[in-house]
């Protein structure tokens, strides 16, 4: 996993609520056996029409917006557990998703792939979306070490993250590396664990 460093980048607004993983990456694009290349089909059915032509009003097709942060409405990533959703966002170039609420499995999947799911208050999310709308080039700064997200006008908010997950992101270390280091404990547990 890549290390997560300080991000300073413009952001892409997607104010929709309850964005489910079937929208992020539709099931028919899950037929790969590798982790790469999903970015191409990120938000496929919102991004392209049935003939494959870009849909103009969709935000990823709007030249005004770019950047490594996606700013989305409440309950982002609900639905299917497909990790392909996190891979698609990462592959497309996003390094963080900001929302006021995340679905559990998506949040875990994102963290396991170096994509930061950053939860802010409803007010802050509103302000962010408004700022970006007014000035699409507005820069968002995410400092993981200090757990703070700030906007160009100096307004900022602290965010929460599990301390272990934070360490993993900062070091580019993953859960498997850690669990493998605990194998002795696991084997010991297996000795006394009975399954009925």
């Amino acid at each position, binding site marked *: 996993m890549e290390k997560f460093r300080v991000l300073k980048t413009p952001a892409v607004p997607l104010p929709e609520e309850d964005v*489910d993983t*079937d929208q992020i990456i539709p099931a028919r694009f899950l037929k790969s*056996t590798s982790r790469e290349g999903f970015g191409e089909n990120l938000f496929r059915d919102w991004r392209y029409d049935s003939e494959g032509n870009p849909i103009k009003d969709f935000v990823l097709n709007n030249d005004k917006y770019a950047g490594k942060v996606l700013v989305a409405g409440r309950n982002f990533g609900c639905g299917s557990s497909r*990790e*392909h959703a996190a891979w698609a966002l990462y592959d497309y170039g996003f390094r963080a998703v900001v929302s006021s609420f995340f679905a*559990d499995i998506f949040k*875990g*999947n994102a963290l396991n792939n170096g994509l930061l799911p950053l939860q802010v208050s409803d007010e802050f999310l509103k302000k962010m979306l408004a700022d970006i709308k007014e000035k699409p080039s507005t820069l968002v700064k995410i400092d993981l070490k200090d757990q703070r997200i700030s906007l160009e006008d100096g307004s900022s908010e602290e965010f929460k993250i599990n*301390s*272990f997950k934070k360490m993993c992101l900062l070091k580019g270390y993953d859960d498997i590396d850690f669990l493998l280091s605990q194998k002795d404990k696991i084997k010991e547990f297996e000795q006394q664990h009975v399954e009925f």
Partner: protein
Amino acid sequence: MPKTLFDKVWDQHVVAQVEGGLEILYIDRHFIHEVTSPQAFSGIRNRGIDIHRTDKIVATADHNVPTKNQHLPIKDALSKLQVDALQQNCEDFGIELYGLGHPYQGIVHVIGPELGITKPGMTIVCGDSHTSTHGAFGAIAFGIGTSQVEQVMATQCLLVERPKTMRITIDGELGDGIYAKDIILYIISKLGTGGGTGHFVEYAGTAIWGLSMEARMTICNMSIEMGARGGMIAPDETTFKYVKGREFAPQGKNLETAITQWKTLYSDNEAVFDTEYNFRAEDIEPMITYGTNPGAGIKITGTVPNPEDVENPEGLKKSLEYMGLEAGQMLKGKQIDHVFIGSCTNSRIEDLRIVANYVKGKKKADHVNAMIVPGSRQVQEQAQKEGIDKILAEAGFELRQSGCSACLGMNEDKIPKSEYCVSTSNRNFEGRQGPGARTMLVSPLTAAAIAIEGKVVDPREFELDKMAV
């Protein structure tokens, strides 16, 4: 200290506590399928490590498989690639595979219980969000991402945060023609798609305890649709009776010991839940969804809500546009093009019996395409034994071979753009059943009645005798 059912099972599986409040949780059974496992196998290979416990993994091919002519090679090249990769991976690592052609093949959440692999008190995971289904047995079962599939392969453990607990109690008696699917659609319509986030849910109350095992699975299955990590129901005599005699269930003395142990799995009287909800069974009616998330459910006699009356008017407007529906409209009477009966929510033998009982001697409406996809080979064979296949054929329903099928449209079974499909599956997201497809979620009985009438109807208005399953 008094404990909840969840706490009891969880505590028995904690290997160690880690910093940041995370815990190492031991996993008793790991189900895998062709879509979310290939990258995990590559991960294991890239790290140059072995799979820690191949004896605790069970594999099947379900998401991608065709539901016609399963004996022929898969036509879709990419689907074939994934199914072949699963077979190769299972061979390479020595994992039990119930693939295409195997008598045990089927949707992963249908075969686990029917084979007696799923048992009370276990921890069960799968790279699939509807793993919550297995919670019906009093197991802690939840969906995981592919990185976690790799974690479990590598160590038989997961590094997780302990979820909060929620209890949803439904007391009272269900009316005629009301099924488990209606209960869970009703609950999700009340709590919303994010209402259970961060929680593990226990379903309790007389209306729940009166349900069969298969109905309980339908309820736990859709826990994820309100954002919960999983759902569970305390095991009881119904559970023990169901498990007994199944292929991989404990037998004889072992079964007795197991049952003694399983009987300790319930929430203590004084146990405290982080969140509690109470509903009355009498308030529940046949349900149907009108929107593009499973929380958008109304009683079948109800009307589509108005954007002005909801919290997220933009979202509702967008979904109504997608669905081709209008605010204030009644769904009753709406013409339907497809009826899909299947998916890990409602494709078990009881579901097929409900449908067969209803359609016996009737004919589906001419314009409706009615498809039934059994959850497993065993369900299909049982249906043939009981003559259900003939009843369905006479009524004009097509009985296919088992798999996920039109639940997510990864194989050929897609619903065409803008057409309406009444479905017994669990998700009505945009494009879930095919690009532009319009899905309405219902119970198997409601689906059967709609297939016959060709439009949305309240099944209770029709003959409901002989409905006991």
